């Protein structure tokens, strides 16, 4: 359990920092409410429309490719840990795995999934 101590300290520090910063801001800053103040602040530009925008389907494609390659990437960690021990078999295994997904990448590229039209 002791090995997780740094993690715990970091989590507490992160949450604490945000909490303290927001809390102090809330306590110290002068509080004034007006309708104008509640409008959306967009770097000085006048904001238009609501907070919800229908996004283009290509964002979804990007997101799903991201998920798939994140899954691929995470398998590389344990693989790296045993590559020396298992040797060729593990190497070939990962080669097959990555080749199959690499074909997926070629497919996505050929079908124009990365074109920003």
């Amino acid at each position, binding site marked *: 359990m002791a090995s997780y101590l740094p993690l715990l300290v970091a989590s507490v520090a992160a949450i604490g920092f945000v909490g303290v910063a927001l809390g102090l801001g809330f306590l110290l800053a002068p509080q004034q409410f007006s309708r104008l103040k509640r409008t959306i602040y967009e770097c000085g530009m006048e904001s238009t429309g609501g907070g919800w925008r229908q996004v283009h389907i290509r964002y979804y494609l990007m997101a799903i490719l991201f998920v798939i390659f994140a899954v691929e990437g995470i398998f590389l960690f344990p693989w790296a840990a045993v590559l020396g021990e298992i040797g060729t078999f593990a190497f070939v295994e990962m080669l097959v795995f990555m080749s*199959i997904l690499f074909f997926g990448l*070629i*497919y996505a590229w*050929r079908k124009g999934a990365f074109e920003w039209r």
Partner: protein
Amino acid sequence: MNGSDFAFLLPEIVLVATAITVWAVDFFTPRDRKPDLAWPAAAGALVAMAFLAISWGEHREMFLGTLRLDNFSLFFRFLFLTVAFFVIVGSPGYVRRKLRNAGEFYGLILMSTVGAMGIVSSREFLTAYISLELVAFGFYVLVSHARHEARSNEAGAKYLILGAFSSGLLLFGISLIFGATGSTGYAAIAAALETTPDFGMVWTLGVALVLAGLGFKVAAFPFHSWAPDVYEGAPLPITAFLSVGSKAAGFAFLIRLFAEGLFPVLDDWRVAIGVVAVLTMTFGNLVAIQQANLKRLLAYSSIAQAGYILVGVATLNADTTSGMLLHIAGYTATNLGAFLVVIYFHNLTGKEGIDDLRGLYRRSFLLTLVLAVSLLSLAGMPLFAGFMTKFYLFTAAAASQLWWLIALAVANSILSVYYYLLVLRQAFITPESEEEEQRPAFRLPSHARATLSLLMVLVLWIGIYPSVFVDAAEAGSRALFGG
């Protein structure tokens, strides 16, 4: 395990390679030629079949027993390759008229087939589960492949949501079984059951959830509700593929699981599975009677057929297993025949209602003949596969002395004759209007005539002289039960 064992996985490797090749060739194929990618895809399935034939009779355990290649898995792998072949060969006309992304379509059919082949060979929950997901992922895309049709999209969404839900049930069940027995391997689970016969509530809940998850996949009552809408909305070749391929894969999973893992506790579940079987067939038949659309009728009829096969699961032993294998083979040939008729009829007319069949015998003798043979076989008429395989299955099941189950199954079988004959009446007897009589005869492409004839011969062969198929089914059953 040594390197040469990989030779036994060549059929799967060939299929994956074919699928990827088809996808790659698709990049460089002009649009009007893409539907013809069916031929290389079908050739891949044939090559895989040839590699499979070489390893007949060989038993192999691979990957520390997670995978077992025996005659049971051979039987089903051969069946799935046959299904893939006929579905792909039956598709080009439909694909040309209705679908885009033809290359992806054929490749996904092959990938789903690889998944199904993985399920039957798995002796372990997780390998079987991920193979099942491969089947399902392929189907999610295939069902909604007609992107520009609202019905297909709706079917895809329904199938995806209920499929994901049922996978969740299955996984939760698997994790409870793992928690109780400490293993996901069927053999280890059976061994744990020998030493500890009762794991209590957690075990019961685990098995019930696994059964519910698989019940969704084979569309057993009360988990059937997705089937009619999905069958109706999916592109026709995919409906055919769903009704035979995906169903057979689910049953292969169930049979191996119960034979190798849960056999020691099967007695606790026989009555429950039997009740589900009776409800499934009764519901399927009663609703099928009311259908006016041929696709929906076949959808409900396939729910009823799943009920008959469940009779075999409820009374599982070596004999009923060979009965189930035989029945699944006969049902596959029969249903593929029926669906190919519907596909070709739809290609020529754009229709799929039962009324639209009027005058079919005048317009195409072959279509009418194959439809008649298939429907009579589904109805379980003597001389056709359906009678022989059901007879074999129910006789074997009778040894269990669950008389109510056998009686209700036979009664259902007789009930179903009615609606199959209604369809044939439209095709043969109901007169055409004068205007309709002017319609020209159909011209079927030669490959269509070949596949239809082949399936009809298969149905009659199984129905009249099934010894080859019985031998294969018994060899498959022996792989699970020994002897």
